[in-house]
């Protein structure tokens, strides 16, 4: 191989290396001044400081994702005001119509990853953001806005590819009906429950005396991954797998009931109350994984399919050109005719360059789906409604495996504001173990520790201008 060929090869390898090494700046976390960080964290719960710091470092691209994760974590920690603020922020972004958005346009480009776009979540994630905001409204006794939130969540489910999976998020119309009922709006409640019954005919509706809603969330969020099914006629690049086994929930509390009536002829006295332990199973109301995985293909999958086709075609061109270069190179080396050697070497060089260019283009095409996901969502939501006396302020929730084995017990605080009470429990913690959401930044950075920069040490005070100079050391 001549000197020029070696140079060409080196340049080609360098170009390929550049391709493999690059990543968009939008994926990277930015450096934030320590003063800004500490000022921002000052009014945030200490347990979530690292999560909030990540929000700051990841910026607008992951704002909705981080707001949703933190909103949910704050609900579990009892910081409802923080949670309301975060979820309102997320929903404002979700409801904003992206038209002529620079980053959205970039994500459609052949050589740019989908994940450079601002995260707004898939329909099931958006619906769940409305769900949690609605729960906070229920807790506050604002039933109008609770219903509006659940209705907003239901609408997010109307973009499913297949008609039978459109608007089947039963959790939402059930809670719409509950909110309407608590508001005293019986006409709307009936309509909402009718809509719910069309989706979940077997789920029991609230009884006339029921005044408390209990929601129990079990399991972990559906996991997104990027893959395509070669046998499918429709492109589908974003897929899901279930991350949890089936769990059920048993709600326990101590009820106060009137004791036996006094014997006939006995003096009338205040009824004697006695404590009765009750255990009521919560019914499966929603399967979040089902909602995620039955959405069908996205419109954007067609764009990804185009990118994938380009990648395949460019790879094929690269392979053919590489083979041609090898054949021409072999011919050049084996030929004894100087003219043939020169021509073959030139042809080999050109084909090598073509191969490198095609391979580089193939490598640069980005057909992978955006797999950032809301990782502290549950797998399933169970619910029951019941008549709960004011004396009951907390419930005990047993979480059971599918064979009935007790896995763990959680406490659910009963909150009353307005005529209805609500209790909410989680099988697994809603505080994400990793401050970063999955795939929220580049590969290496995902696993680097999150370190909050310390505040710089204060500068030593300068001596006053009229102060006497320090005495010389003896």
């Amino acid at each position: 191989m001549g000197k020029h060929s070696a140079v060409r090869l080196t340049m080609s390898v360098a170009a390929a290396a550049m391709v493999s090494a690059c990543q968009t700046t939008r994926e990277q976390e930015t450096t934030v001044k320590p003063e800004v960080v500490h000022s921002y964290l000052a009014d945030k719960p200490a347990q979530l400081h690292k999560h909030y710091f990540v929000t700051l470092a990841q910026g607008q691209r992951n704002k909705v994702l981080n707001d949703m994760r933190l909103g949910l974590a704050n609900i579990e920690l009892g910081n409802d005001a923080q949670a309301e603020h975060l979820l309102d922020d997320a929903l404002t972004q979700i409801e904003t119509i992206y038209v002529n958005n620079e980053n959205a346009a970039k994500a459609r480009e052949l050589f740019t990853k989908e994940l450079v776009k601002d995260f707004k979540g898939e329909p099931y994630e958006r619906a769940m953001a409305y769900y949690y905001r609605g729960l906070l409204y229920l807790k506050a006794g604002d039933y109008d806005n609770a219903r509006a939130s659940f209705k907003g969540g239901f609408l997010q489910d109307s973009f499913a590819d297949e008609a039978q999976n459109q608007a089947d998020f039963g959790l939402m119309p059930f809670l719409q009906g509950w909110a309407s009922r608590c508001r005293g709006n019986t006409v709307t409640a009936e309509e909402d429950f009718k809509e719910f019954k069309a989706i979940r005919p077997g789920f029991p509706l609230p009884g006339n005396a029921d005044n408390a809603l209990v929601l129990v969330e079990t399991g972990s969020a559906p996991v997104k991954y990027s893959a395509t099914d070669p046998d499918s006629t429709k492109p589908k690049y974003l897929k899901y797998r279930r991350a949890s086994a089936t769990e059920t929930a048993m709600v326990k509390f101590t009820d106060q009931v009137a004791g036996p009536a006094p014997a006939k002829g006995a003096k009338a006295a205040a009824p004697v109350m006695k404590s009765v332990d009750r255990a009521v199973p919560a019914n499966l109301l929603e399967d979040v994984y089902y909602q995620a995985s039955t959405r069908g293909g996205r419109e954007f999958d067609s764009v990804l399919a185009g990118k994938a086709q380009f990648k395949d075609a460019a790879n094929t061109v690269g392979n053919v050109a590489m083979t041609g270069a090898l054949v021409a190179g072999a011919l050049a080396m084996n030929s004894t005719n100087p003219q043939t050697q020169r021509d073959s070497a030139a042809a080999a060089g050109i084909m090598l360059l073509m191969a490198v260019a095609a391979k580089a283009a193939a490598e640069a095409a980005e057909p992978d789906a955006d797999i950032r996901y809301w990782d502290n969502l549950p797998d399933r939501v169970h619910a029951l409604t019941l008549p709960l006396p004011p004396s009951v302020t907390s419930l005990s929730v047993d979480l059971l495996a599918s064979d009935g084995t007790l896995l763990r017990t959680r406490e659910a605080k009963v909150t009353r504001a307005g005529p209805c009470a609500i209790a909410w429990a989680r099988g697994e913690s809603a505080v994400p173990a990793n401050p970063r959401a999955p795939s929220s930044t580049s590969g290496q950075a995902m696993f680097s520790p999150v370190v909050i920069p310390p505040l710089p040490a204060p500068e030593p005070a300068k001596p006053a201008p009229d102060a006497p100079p320090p005495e010389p050391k003896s």
Partner: protein
Amino acid sequence: MRRLMIVASSALALSACQTVQNSAGTPTTYQDPATLGAVKGVGIESQDIVSMTDQMMRDMLTEPRLANAATAPNVIIDAEYFVNESSSRINRNSITDRLRVSLQRASQGRMNFVGRHYANMVQSERNLKRQGVVDKATTGTAAAQKGGDYRLGGRITSQDARDPRTGMMSRYTQIIFEMADLESGDIVWSGIYEFSKAAADDVIYR
């Protein structure tokens, strides 16, 4: 030719590294709440609230029983009976507050406005005066807080539609306002404001 190809292949390779610069941010600007804002959706937005309350105020002032009675009627305008059944989350007070303030300024004494939402505050002060904890102030005492002759009620409803094929979503929003006579239940005035908005998100979010 060869150089050109090398340059072309490098450029092609580097195009994969196309970066989207982090936005430098946008400085705060004042916006006219009566015009379409920078952030747009299909729900109820500031320009809708401004436009609807202005329209309702003007319309209410043309109703003789409210704005031209021999004795100015006592009117209660708050969100207590203003129901939101739409799919837009909204603070209903933002509508009724603007309507009450606009009406009070425009009616110039032709209507009395009772602050029922301040009833607890008023009662607390009345109690302090009667207990002698504070003096009787300057405007004198009243036998009781004022009752209302009329009170505002209303309902926000919406109808949503989505086309999964095109990603187009539309929302028709209807807001009705009614003024009810608090003795007879007669509805002495009503107004309606409606609008429909449609939009489609970028394909990347569908």
